[in-house]
């Protein structure tokens, strides 16, 4: 699903150049649930940004679902993001004046799906995250865990190839974190490919594979025995 070869990325900081990613080789198969771990400054967020086409690499190859990702202009990148990727953010990033259903329907709007169909699909995905009754509630009326579940429903609504989650449990307490991880595991069970950036070991253990980044290189890449979050809920 994802093939990355010799990926380099550096940021200019004044006259200095900060080499963040120093040759990443990495691939993800369909249906994997991968945790990307590392301390801050290890380059895990930069890697996720490049995977999410939010940032470009300096050199190296990136192939997503057989499509080489290179020389993207804004419009093309937006199209690819809409088609291939679903994002889950640490701070949810729901649009505060839209209710849960409208938030979930937003990526479908950018796919030019008709209004009726959009609402039906949004309700369906809200149902999958167990929030169908909350469809007309604004984000301010939802708890943190509920917000993240709406965000996950939103990410799934566009039926992406890969779900990218950037510290999805970073703003949640551990009980809610496990609920969210349970949901992510269930979505993975349905065959979806998911990448989770985290620095929490217990969250990483709930994935099927852990990739450890340190100082811009992968220091460890191992398959693990998944801990089911449902055991903690």
């Amino acid at each position, binding site marked *: 699903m994802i093939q990355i070869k010799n990926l380099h990325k550096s940021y200019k900081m004044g006259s200095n150049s900060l080499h963040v990613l120093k040759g990443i080789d990495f691939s993800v198969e369909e249906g994997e649930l991968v945790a990307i771990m590392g301390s801050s400054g290890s380059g895990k967020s930069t890697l996720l940004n490049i995977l999410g086409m939010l940032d470009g690499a300096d050199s190296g190859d990136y192939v997503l679902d057989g499509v080489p990702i290179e020389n993207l202009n804004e419009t093309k990148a937006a199209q690819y993001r*809409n088609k291939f990727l679903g994002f889950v953010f640490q701070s949810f*990033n729901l649009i505060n*004046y839209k209710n849960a259903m409208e938030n979930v329907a937003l990526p479908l709007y950018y796919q030019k799906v008709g209004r009726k169909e959009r609402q039906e699909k949004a309700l369906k995905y809200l149902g999958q995250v167990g929030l169908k009754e909350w469809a007309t509630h604004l984000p301010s009326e939802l708890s943190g865990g509920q917000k993240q579940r709406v965000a996950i429903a939103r990410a799934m609504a566009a039926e992406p190839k890969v779900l990218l989650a950037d510290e999805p449990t970073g703003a949640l307490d551990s009980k809610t974190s496990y609920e969210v991880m349970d949901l992510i595991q269930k979505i993975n069970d349905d065959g979806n490919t998911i990448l989770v950036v985290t620095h929490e070991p217990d969250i990483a253990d709930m994935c099927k594979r852990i990739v450890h980044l340190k100082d811009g290189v992968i220091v460890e890449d191992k398959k693990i025995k998944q801990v089911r979050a449902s055991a903690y809920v």
Partner: protein
Amino acid sequence: MFDRDIWVEIFNSIKNNKLRTFLTGFSVGWGIFILVVLLGCVNAMTNGFHGQFNDDATNSIFIRPGTTSKAYAGFEAERRIQLKNDDIEYIRKSFPDDFENISGRMFRRTTARYKSETGSYTVQAVHPDFQVIEKTIITQGRFINTNDLVSGAKVAVIGRKVKEDLFKNEAALGKFVEFNGLPFRVIGVFTDDGDDNAERGILAPISTYQRIYSNTDNVDQIALTYNSSYDLTRALEFSGRLETILKRRHKVAPKDQAGIRIWNYAEAFSDINNFTGILDTGAIFVVMLLLTAGVVGIGNIMVFTVKERTKEIGVRKALGAKPIQIIKLVLLESVFITALSGFIGLLIASGILAGVGPLIEAPAFKNPSVDFSTVLIATIILIIAGFFAGLLPAMKAAKIKPIVALNDK
């Protein structure tokens, strides 16, 4: 553009920033308000000026003899010039293509009597053509015709006020009125748009009056209208030729302004048109400055809106919003605020003009209003202005990197 979701978002953005939107919208509305009121006033002045002249045909020329101020051709200065029937005939023959109507004028005071009612009026003795030149409106009967002129009939067309004075509610047509003891038959009653004073006048055939006053062929004034297809230059050139020829006939020095005066409406009209044109331009210029301030204000609010929504825009882009969709969102909001507030200004101003306008009673200020084309142009200007106000902020919004939405740790 007719996407319901975009409008929902625009209304939401406005709802969340009511005061800010109102204040900025106000400046645009105010600019349009002033534009409409100013143009309405200029219009009113134009209407007023034209109204002042409107009782005469706008292509008329008046020839008035005077007293020479310079000695010329063996004559001394201070000589009275007298126009004659010959002069009218001469103009008829010399300028067949240049004039449309021509009439002599004689003015005589008269005491008119009908039964026991008497009154003192001025009789204007004229040719049939005079009806067109003075835009005299006949409400009853008819105007003086060629037969009256040839036969020197003692007939009269009386003004509405004269009829009221002498006849009260009686019918006047066909009745005989005594002018200085001589019986004249009333053949018509006229009104005049210009003023009530003109309606206190009496019109009679010029030949009749020339016969009464010792068989003279004197004419006090000559009035004519020039070919209405003439533009200003040709009209002035024609009155110039008239002046030269009449001065030559009456042995008046070419530079003598007092001997014969020619008064051409075209000149007065071109002056008025120039004047109101300058007022119009001035008004539009002032309003453009005001509108610029308003547009900068709208641009300002949009910059704020974009800044405030940076994160939201980033999220949208991460979810697949194309730059053009973001630009559309910001531009539509800007155009909407500008157009709406401008339109409110337009409505209020039009309302005030329509409400207050008729209450103002001044001769040089009549019917202040703006025509549809002004409204249309103002609307187009507003939409364009809103577009430009939103353009920079929209482009700024489109450049927001979705990465900022992720950098929230």
